[in-house]
């Protein structure tokens, strides 16, 4: 039952707390690209890979009381933070899925900004292209972010570290 929900609950159980929906979106996508079997379907959007399915599923988990969403007012926008609840832990105990250990990757992802994760996820989205074309594509689809060469190099190293 609800195997995709259970997989996400395992993520929240490992992550403990996730700050921001944008970060959540990018984290799950990057983990997918690291062969963690989350099944949410992603498409490329204005701010990089985005999954409507993930948005809905997280909303369902909140409404079921398995995760708690806290709306935090920032200077000119809202940020939504997530944490697993006791009911969520109970659900996970009953329906734990067979997943590889991805706690190390989650730790690495949590320490990074959402801007950086947007870059990493965008590079991974185009990973079927030759390396030099990936950089061109990032500049084409994200001209306003003005990612520097240093950031791109850092992202490349980060991807290597995540996958190995």
């Amino acid at each position, binding site marked *: *039952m*609800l195997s*995709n*929900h259970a997989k996400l609950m395992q993520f929240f159980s490992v992550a403990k707390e996730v700050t*921001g*929906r*944008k970060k959540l*979106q990018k984290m799950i996508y990057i983990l997918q690209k690291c062969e963690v079997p989350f099944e949410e*379907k992603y*498409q*490329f*959007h*204005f*701010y990089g890979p*985005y999954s*409507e*399915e993930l*948005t*809905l*599923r997280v*909303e*369902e988990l*909140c*409404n*079921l*009381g*398995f995760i708690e969403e806290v709306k935090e007012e*920032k200077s*000119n*926008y*809202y*940020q*939504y933070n997530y944490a697993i609840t006791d*009911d969520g832990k*109970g*659900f996970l105990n*009953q329906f734990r899925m067979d997943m590889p250990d991805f706690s190390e990757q989650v730790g690495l992802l949590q320490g990074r900004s*959402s801007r950086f994760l*947007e870059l990493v996820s965008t590079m991974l989205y*185009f990973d079927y292209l030759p390396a030099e074309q990936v950089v061109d*594509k990032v500049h*084409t*689809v994200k*001209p*306003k972010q003005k990612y520097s060469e240093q950031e791109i190099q850092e992202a490349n190293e980060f991807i290597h570290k995540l996958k190995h």
Partner: protein
Amino acid sequence: MCYKEEQLIEEKVFKDPVHRYVHVKDRVIWDLIATPEFQRLRRIKQLGTSNYTFHGAEHSRFNHSLGVYEIVRRIIYNFQERPYWNNEKRLLCLCAALLHDLGHGPFSHSFEKVFKLDHEQYTQAIILGDTHVNRILKSVEPGFDQAVADVIAKTYEDKLVVSLISSQIDADRMDYLQRDAYFTGVSYGHFDMERILRVMRPMEDQVVIKSTGMHAVEDYIMSRYQMYWQVYFHPVTRSAEVILSKILHRAKFLFETEDFTFKLEPTHFISFFKGKVDLQEYLRLDEGIVSYYFQLWQEEDDEILQDLCERFLNRRLFKYIEFNPNLQMNDWMELYRLFQKAGIDPEYYLVVDSSSDLPYDFYRPGEEEERLPIHLLMPDGSLKELSRHSDIVEAISGKKRTDHKLYFPKDMLEKLKDEHIKTRIKDILYGQGEVENAK
């Protein structure tokens, strides 16, 4: 005159129940419509299994694709001479609008889930592969096929062009809401599209709505919300979708079972079962072929496959109850065990279906930089997110609505001989008494 600019001697029109007429003057568009890959969309229903609930919902992806093309054509007509609009992108937008759903297969949502496919990847493959569509696009100019593919994949450099085809208020959604409302016969789904088209303004990287047109957009958001719950997530439609998915799972399972042989080799499905579907095999499958196999599978030597196909073809659907996976976790586990004891395989006959299993959504403004919301263009030239200005939209977007249902074959339960198991299952399912939809 080069092919890119070639116009038909006389404008062609398609009579359309939603937009009255779809106008075609470009030779390229006319030629694309005539390709086998585009004509194939006539054989794929827009709403999959919704015709089990709304018998009029037999319209196809062909109808919808023409509709999206027509809306984009009208938007571009209104954009002429406006700042930020580059009319050299006109043909690119029209082609992307026409071809945006080219990769959809029969009952594509179920097929994608069961066989781990992505119709968007097939759209790309059709546009860029060895196809009639690709040859036409390449004839326009070098790289034009790739540009059309990029617009549809939302990775094209010009975000304004992308947002016409894909955004929170795009031609795709405006067509399917109205078309689905028309063919289902429901009274929701209608909004003043002409007014929205008049207040759309091109900006540097998105289409925005002039603030005076806010009420027309509110109407559109309401329609989207109502259609979501009243049509797209209709529980009877979902029941048919559940059975369809289970048929595909069962057929795949049998194919992988060594000691089972299909009476008729499922030729069209083999690559799907094996997880390696090439483009030509993908294009060969349409709803006619799928129905043909379902007819034949009623005769196969497997009771589950027989039963599920018979249910799907004759609309003998599963019943359902509202289900809360948090409060009823233990009930579900007990039901699972009772179904097993009763000889009813719960993997096929006890199914939880959630709102997130749907390929539709309703408007949520979201968090900053989560995804691009609808922006209003205020009189001072600033942009304001729609729900910050509209009380109606704020009320809808703040409302949390998700849903889970538990589907099961009530007729099978009624026939159970073990009265103890039967009574216990009914007690769990119906609790204080049978609800209307489970009767």
